[in-house]
């Protein structure tokens, strides 16, 4: 284990990742049950929770589809076993049969040791939802993992990287990387200069434009590490003659609340929606980021403020695909030589149904495309899903149990480039490439669109 994986002093060394402040052991059971009661009282999970926890047939079909279990063979990675940790508690305290018959119906009183098991198990799941695709009873263990993490958060168990980033996002700077506003504006200026140098055309990145049709928000990490993706997106909007804008405040689409907290998710989501509403933009377009897209798509109507619920939400892939269909994009696939394959980000595929649109775009901008096997709804997670990609303590796990299936899958394609339109996937895949010496390059979809797009001076 390298030095970076050593837990800090204020961390319970029993757990595989660093948390900042956890409750004393003796207080955990009571708090856990209080939080579960609050979650049920909020009434936004009751139907799925009751069905998932009450009707699972324990057929173990999920394990046969779980890439983590298929790699580790560890009982803790059986999705149904993990869900059972919460199922037993739910039955014991919140169902009549559990209260009356206890262990006879699979109910069990919660102990501190059970919570230890949960801390471990719920952060060994990438929440990829692959196991749900072929569940005979349509039980989705990823939601149970998510609820489990929300419960653990109330005890203080959250990977430090997530809480630090979220604190910055909900603080003065409004973004997870704590970039001050002047620095962000400098970045936008820099991107405009790059566009001018590259194309010889003035392609503006409009800022805070009231009434723009599209309000674009990317994960802030794209502004630091994925300039090519953003340049491609700017060129796409420009070529299509679209009315668009970015915001200079609350522009970060990242929402780690999806992975551990409804309170955080709600705050971040509403902060993101606020300037869209204020600027009277019709559509919020999320950049190449799977979890940001999913957190908006799934939670806007239930956690967004009522006045924000009319805002349309799209992922940039949907918008670019529409431009392509409308003939607004002139593309030259010869600009992207080499063999390309496509990684379906879980949150864009299983989470948002974006399977065919990215492929149509990709086939329009590259000459040689090969599919991974399996793909679409059965594609493997990158291994860093569920927010685990930001947890440095889990790096070794992500490179092995979490991601080895993905690494093997990429190797078998023979491709030189892997297209991954998701910021978290890109980070994890690049680490996998390095750890497993895959010899491929990870790129964004709009990086390639940006290269292939043929712009006219008077566009």
């Amino acid at each position: 284990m390298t030095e970076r994986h050593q837990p800090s002093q204020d961390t319970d060394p029993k757990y595989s990742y660093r948390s900042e402040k956890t409750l004393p052991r003796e207080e955990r059971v009571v708090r856990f049950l209080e939080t579960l009661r609050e979650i049920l009282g909020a009434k936004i999970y009751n139907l799925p929770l009751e069905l998932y926890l009450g009707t699972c047939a324990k057929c173990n079909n999920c394990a046969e589809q779980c890439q983590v279990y298929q790699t580790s063979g560890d009982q803790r990675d059986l999705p149904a076993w993990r869900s059972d940790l919460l199922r037993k508690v739910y039955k014991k305290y919140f169902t009549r049969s559990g209260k009356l018959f206890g262990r006879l119906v699979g109910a069990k009183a919660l102990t501190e040791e059970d919570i230890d098991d949960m801390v471990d198990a719920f952060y060994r799941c990438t929440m990829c939802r692959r196991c749900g695709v072929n569940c005979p009873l349509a039980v989705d263990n990823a939601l149970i993992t998510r609820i489990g993490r929300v419960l653990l958060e109330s005890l203080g168990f959250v990977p430090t990287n997530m809480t630090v980033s979220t604190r910055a996002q909900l603080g003065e700077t409004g973004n997870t990387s704590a970039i001050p506003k002047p620095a962000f504006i400098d970045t936008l200026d820099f991107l405009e200069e790059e566009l001018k140098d590259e194309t010889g055309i003035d392609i503006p990145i409009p800022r805070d434009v009231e009434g723009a049709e599209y309000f674009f928000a990317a994960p802030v990490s794209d502004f630091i590490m994925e300039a090519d993706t953003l340049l491609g997106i700017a060129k796409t909007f420009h070529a299509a003659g679209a009315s668009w804008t970015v915001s200079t405040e609350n522009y970060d689409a990242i929402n780690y609340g999806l992975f551990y907290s409804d309170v955080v998710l709600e705050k971040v989501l509403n902060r993101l929606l606020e300037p869209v509403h204020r600027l009277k933009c019709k559509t919020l377009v999320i950049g190449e980021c799977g979890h940001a897209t999913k957190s908006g798509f799934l939670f806007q109507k239930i956690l967004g403020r009522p006045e924000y619920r009319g805002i349309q939400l799209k992922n940039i892939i949907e918008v670019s695909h529409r431009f392509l269909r409308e003939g607004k994009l002139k593309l030259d696939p010869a600009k992207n030589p080499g063999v390309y394959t496509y990684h379906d980000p879980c949150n864009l595929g299983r989470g948002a149904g974006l399977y065919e649109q990215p492929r149509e775009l990709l086939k329009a901008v590259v000459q040689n495309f090969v599919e991974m096997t399996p793909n679409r709804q059965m594609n493997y997670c990158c291994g860093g899903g569920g927010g685990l990609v930001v947890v440095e303590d889990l790096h070794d796990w992500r490179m092995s149990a979490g991601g080895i299936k993905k690494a093997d899958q990429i190797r078998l394609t023979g491709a030189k480039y892997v297209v991954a339109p998701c910021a978290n996937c890109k980070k994890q895949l690049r680490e996998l490439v390095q750890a497993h010496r895959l010899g491929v390059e990870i790129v964004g979809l709009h990086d390639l669109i940006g290269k292939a797009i043929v712009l006219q001076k008077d566009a």
Partner: protein
Amino acid sequence: MTGSEFIANVFPYIAVGLFFAGTGWRFVQWLALPAHVKWTLHPVPEGLASQLKYMAKEIFTFETLYRFNRRLWVGTFCMHMAMLGAVLFLVLNLIGWTQGFPVRYCLWLLAVSVIYIFWLRLVDGNLRVLSSFEEYFNLAFLAVVATAGLRASVPHASSSSRSYILGLLTFQPGGTSLAWDQLLAVFLVSLFLIYLPWSKMIHYISKYFTYHHINWQKE
């Protein structure tokens, strides 16, 4: 009214009533729950026809298990088809289209497949870890019901099971001459019907909610 008369002539009506009431109550309870978080799992079959096709395929072939868990699929498929077959052939027998032996074959298949699944849960390490008392109890209950049904379906000199069931269906119960094994079968089947809606075997309706209200939710 003696205990035997109660079991033969009254209890089946109570059981069927409780089965429908329990199933209906749970259906309505789930239907009445407030709007939940959207948790769609893509791809979603487009249109009602595609969704019905998907469901029919899953219900009649258990394709998801077939693809990933063939050993369990053998037992599960046989068990469910045997239950379906037993009911279907019983109806055909009652209306005079078939003899009684297809029902008996189905009950044999049901008993054997349930025992197979029970065994599989004991010997497969992962299934054993996941299985609680409830899983074993449900299987054992089903095995006992199937076995009792088999025993009762053997032709009896004193009373015909077919005539007895026809009597129940026409609200003219005449179960006073039932043999002990026929009475036991009636009692166990009735108990099972009462238990079914309150067990996790309620998935005969829960699947509607997990698919249509959650996995395939559009808005």
